[in-house]
């Protein structure tokens, strides 16, 4: 046997028929479930193709091709639920997988909260959110990108040493979701990404950092050169860290770490944590949980954004929400099941939030640093030390020590600790250095006082 040398041509992106093909599969799954005796059922099928190229020490290191299709079917029999997932998409697997889900539903207990969403909550309109910008896979292009990002990092400074390199990737996904109430939604999206890591070395030791960007549009991703330089710059500025005296200081999360400060607030008012009594924000609806200057508003339908969605994981229509209004909880974030458990209506949050914007009077970030005077500017966090049940917060951090409102020197190997309630109520300002990259659109955030522990 020989292998034909037509390698690049072997990577075919989804053709126009893929959505139709997956839709038919979803319909067959739901039909099979109803035939096997399910009262209600839902199915999701996804198909994804991706290519990732990585470079290291100015040479290509890995090329990875991924092609995967998987489906999930959930059945309800008298409010008893069973789920089966498989990556075996052969015809015989459809029957077998549905049978597995049915056999699980025979043993689970009936829960009146189980079941598909109420029909009138299901999304019926699916405007194009412009998330699909397919381009033919060009391996040479991806190689050039990875090499350029790696080189830009290595060339940035003589202290930058070869380490884990850089990569460039592209992914195309088609997913189709449907249920026995007639709901059907096909969604196609693309993700293009570039990332680089950098290792900086001095006599005092090594520091690494990274940078990345991704978008559903290839041309919107920051250039390979920029990504490489940014990684190098971030590693360099961490060299020769010093220690600080353990004590209580104001702490500013820079715009890239600010989302991790806000995330527990979102988790704390999410249905699953509320009905399991796993949140310190139990019964917090309409109460003040954060500074009056914090408003969080969610925009699920923004165009050309990876996080945007017309419906949630249950198929419930998404809408704009003011989540936190001047520090007050305006809505919990509920999926179908958690809403029923709490005797409320779904807010279209099965599977989490989409695009959440901080809306406030932003302060020029230099002024915010002046206000900080003496304390810690956090640029990197390590470890997860949040106890959502009590609100206790303790996290490893690195960043810069601020003296007289200006950066004095890098700091590493410290912890920052407080309690989430005190932290959210103690936010004293939001920087105007707004970034809009992932789930949260936010600038830097200054917290009045946290315990900084160091050696």
């Amino acid at each position, binding site marked *: 046997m020989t292998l034909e040398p037509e390698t690049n041509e072997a990577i075919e992106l989804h053709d126009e028929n893929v959505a139709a093909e997956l839709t038919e599969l979803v319909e067959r799954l739901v039909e099979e479930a109803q035939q096997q005796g399910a009262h209600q059922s839902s199915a999701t099928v996804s198909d994804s193709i991706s290519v990732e190229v990585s470079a290291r020490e100015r040479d290509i290191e890995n*090329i990875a091709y991924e092609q995967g299709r998987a489906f999930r079917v959930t059945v309800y029999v008298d409010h008893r639920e069973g789920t089966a997932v498989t990556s075996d998409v052969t015809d015989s697997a459809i029957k077998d997988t549905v049978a597995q889900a049915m056999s699980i539903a025979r043993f689970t207990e009936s829960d009146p909260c189980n079941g598909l969403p109420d029909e009138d909550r299901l999304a019926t309109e699916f405007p194009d959110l412009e998330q699909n910008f397919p381009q033919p896979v060009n391996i040479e292009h991806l190689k050039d990108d990875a090499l350029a990002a790696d080189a830009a990092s290595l060339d940035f400074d003589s202290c930058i040493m070869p380490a884990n390199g850089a990569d460039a990737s592209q992914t195309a996904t088609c997913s189709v979701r449907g249920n026995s109430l007639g709901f059907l939604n096909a969604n196609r999206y693309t993700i293009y990404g570039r990332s680089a890591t950098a290792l900086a070395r001095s006599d005092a030791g090594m520091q690494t950092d990274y940078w990345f960007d991704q978008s559903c549009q290839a041309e919107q991703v920051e250039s390979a050169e920029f990504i490489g330089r940014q990684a190098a710059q971030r590693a360099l500025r961490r060299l020769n860290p010093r220690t600080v005296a353990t004590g209580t200081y104001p702490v500013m999360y820079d715009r890239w770490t600010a989302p991790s400060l806000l995330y527990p607030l979102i988790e704390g008012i999410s249905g699953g944590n509320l009905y399991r009594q796993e949140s310190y924000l139990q019964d917090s609806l309409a109460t003040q949980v954060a500074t009056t200057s914090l408003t969080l508003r969610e925009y699920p339908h923004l165009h050309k954004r990876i996080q945007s969605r017309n419906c949630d994981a249950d198929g419930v229509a998404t809408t704009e929400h003011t989540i936190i209004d001047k520090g007050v909880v305006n809505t919990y974030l509920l999926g179908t099941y958690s809403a029923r458990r709490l005797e409320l209506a779904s807010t279209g949050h099965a599977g989490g939030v989409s695009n959440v914007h901080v809306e406030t009077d932003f302060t020029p970030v230099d002024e915010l640093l002046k206000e900080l005077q003496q304390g810690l500017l956090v640029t990197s966090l390590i470890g997860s030390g949040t106890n959502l049940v009590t609100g206790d917060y303790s*996290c490893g951090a690195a960043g810069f020590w601020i003296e007289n409102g200006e950066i004095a020197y890098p700091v590493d190997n410290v912890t920052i600790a407080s309690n989430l309630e005190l932290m959210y109520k103690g936010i004293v300002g939001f920087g105007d250095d707004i970034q809009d990259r992932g789930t949260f659109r936010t600038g830097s955030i200054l917290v009045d006082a946290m315990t900084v522990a160091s050696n």
Partner: protein
Amino acid sequence: MSDSPAQSRQNLLEQAELTDQDLALNVTGMMDRQIDDAELYIQHNRSEAWALEDGKVKDGSFSVSQGVGVRAITGEKTGFAHTNELNERALHKACVMASSIADRGGNRRAETPGDTPFRRLYPGGDPTAGVTNEDKIRFLSELDRFTREIDPRIVEVSISIRGSSDRVLVYGSDGTNQFDDRPLVNCRIHVIVKDGTRSESGTDGSGGRYPLDVFFQEDFATAKQMAREAVRMAITKLDSVPAPAGEMPVVLGPGWAGVLLHEAVGHGLEGDCERKNTSCFSGKIGEKVANELCTVIDDATLDGRRGSLSIDDEGTPGQRTVLIEDGILRGFMWDKHNAILTGNQSTGNGRRESFASLTIPRMTNTFLLGGESDPEDIVRSVSKGVYCSAFSGGQVDPSSGRFVFATTEAYLIEDGKLTSPIHGCMLTGYPWDVMNSITMVGSDFALDPGVGTCGKQGQGVPVGVGQPTIKVEQITVGGTSA
């Protein structure tokens, strides 16, 4: 009765609609493209999970994940393609794509014996097969009732059991032709307690590579002990006070606290860091990196442990590797690829999350050997510090060495005695500082109960850790009480 390994291997191939000849021809075809090394990894993973919450067994799921990963290596370059479509055509296509990495003349690597004998460390077959679904439901419901009766302050109980069987076949151009059938089970109990306005949580779990019915024996004795432990932890924490902040002596209890070793030294001793010179331990073999009381081992060969592997994901038999001996750095953990590039031998640490991930060097069961100190003497030796007995996990930046790990149950030590329980908090340090300041090593060595999953480059793999009670003279405690 479960099938013999040979039969189980044959079933895997049949499910994949592949024959031994397909494997051989495709590997030969790849090698004709002038690469150094070609490898096929065929996997079939079956898992099921049952969960109880709010007094009801309301979640059950069954999943099958199967596919093939093809790796082509030339020098430092790797071409990798995977697909979950299993048939000869899909395999062939993946082989073509993976071998597109070839860009120069091949240097065939040394042949290894195709089926190096190894000891099977766990039974093959489906570990859940010995228990009926009715029994699984009864187990969860009875355990829920048992747990709720332990204390009236319990407001929520969640319990889960899961079991998986993972069959992998590794077939390589170097002659590798190995098959492994890996069971994995676990049981986890989580409780929320409430007293007035205070809430706390407690968790306990255990698992390993053994049949699920271990939890069902002796009237659920193992699981009931876990329930008591989870409740005890939650109730204890109701009285906790703020944790101190700053550098101080810390005593770490036996078992799961070994997560310290995993983060502080384990990751930095994985061969990819050594090859790429990105570890703070790079080039330090033979040097003193820890107090002479410390001997650290990675051992894949323990029977039935969560981190154990009869063979790794490259077909190399699992091994016991001395990493640090009496404080001196002795070795790194290697997969084949990184070992060959640096002139080393694989130590059987090549692992991957699944067929869809690239193999990288990973830990198996990593632990610090026991010493001679009486654990009580260790606590008595501290006038002011912290005792930590439970952890939620940790993280490390291998190049700077900085690591953190989070305690979930800890106490103040005052004048040699445990006093108030304290809120959970982060501990942070550098390996050389912390490993050199381990000044007492207890005689109460224990492995963790089998709950650890290690994440690296987005891939999670089951691991074990272990240690006796130890005293660290100086480590930063990240509480709020400055």
